[in-house]
């Protein structure tokens, strides 16, 4: 499974999100490859799930993967809830 963590510049914020997503993935006992990138690159990258904010999600509609919206990149509980919901739908 491939997950992308996305922010506007693809540097700091998405990296922190990636680290938090990696922790959540471990807690959920999943096998996933998590990468972080900027929003323009993300639309051209294959992925099963894209985790990002509501503002950036609009630019990612049409991507083959499921876009998962997270408001607080630092709240692992929110990330966990959002990701679990996407996985089970």
């Amino acid at each position, binding site marked *: 499974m491939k997950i992308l963590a996305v*922010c*506007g*510049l*693809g*540097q*700091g*914020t998405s*990296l*922190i999100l*990636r*680290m938090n997503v*990696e922790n959540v993935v471990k807690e959920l006992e999943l096998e996933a490859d998590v*990468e*972080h*990138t*900027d*929003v*323009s*690159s993300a639309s051209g990258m294959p992925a099963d799930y894209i985790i990002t*904010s509501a*503002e*950036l999600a*609009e*630019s990612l509609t049409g991507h083959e993967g499921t876009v998962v919206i997270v*408001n*607080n*990149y*630092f709240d692992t509980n929110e990330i966990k809830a959002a990701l679990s919901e996407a996985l089970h739908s």
Partner: protein
Amino acid sequence: MSSIMWMVENVFGTPAILLGFIVFVGLLLQKKNVSQLMSGTFKAVIGFLVIGAGSGVIVDALMVFQPMWKEVFGLEAESLGEFMGQDSFNAQYGSAVALAMTLGFLINVLLARFTRFKFIYLTGHMMFWTTTIFAGIVVHTVGDVSPTKLVIFLAVIMGLYWTLQPALTQPFMRKITGNDNIALGHTSASVALLGALAGKYAGNKDNDSEKIKVPKGLEFLRDSNVITALTMGVLFLVGAIILIAKGTPGAEELMAQSGEQSFIIYAIIQSFMFAGGIAIVLMGVRMFIGEIVPAFNGIATKLVPGAKPALDSPVVFPYAPNAVILGFLGAFFGSLLWLVVIGNTVSYIFVPTMIVIFFHSATAGVFGNATGGVRGALLAGFITSTVVSWGQYIMVNALLSSTVPDTAMWAADSDMFILGPIIKFLAQLFF
């Protein structure tokens, strides 16, 4: 002995290999498996080498942008002069920058462990740029320096800066986020503080920016590639049209560069090349920072109980999305104004890159709004454009003109401009 010397020269003397080594150790500490070790280490080496390639593309586009606007303002043709540029600067001093960054981070961790400033700086790309720019200032100021001295000097300064900067902004961060869990770790701290002060004295706190409705459709402002190409595109296009209208000999000469191609199209393509160059550099930075920062974070959380992460500036954006746009508008207006004023007074062509303008003014906007509402946010944005435009002029001309002025034109920003003269002074003192 000779094998040690060989190690020092070839491993520590070759920045890409050194970074690969640092990442390798970092991944080992995180107990990653063999496949992760391989991919992480390789990506770090490739990433560092990619930066040089991207810098070349940016410089090529700047070499069109600068003469173009010089001609628009009718300024004496004065080129950037001789400078090393990011690519060869990295080849020569990249190892020192990488080591100083790593040691500076360890100093940050130690200070967080033993003082009351519990902040761990985790914005890796800004760590890299700030150390690079400060190294550029030192090398420009004192000439050829001993690598050991350069590393120690920079590591101490960076360690202090990364610990104290989040501490200075934290009182306002508490106000913005409503808690004490995260801190700001970004070089926009100085304009954020100035913005908050301006908001306090000249703003109106009751007129909170979040009460107004901002039209939908401004989402593209969050995409750094798009806004960089857009703003540079507008400036290149305006410059090209003015040159065609002027038709002076200098203008004719510049227009000849496009050959058979229309000069307008040529100019527009240059703006996209500029944005492309930045995208390449950022991809390179992402490839090695993405491997180093998790290792740094692993070390910090083990060693410092109760550590607070100091994070990239977009962490504050969700708390006041309208202030983000207002800060940007204030800075956009300011940079166009300063482009013309600085061009006509001190004959410098300001390169307003959106990474600097947007991220810094947006952060300042959120801080300005917290103390002074809508007026505070707009003012904070304007202050940001003032600091980065005049700062760029001073930095490029006086602080590092022989080393990395190219990088200073697009990746140096608020705090670096404010601290730049102090670094120069300290360099003169200690070297």
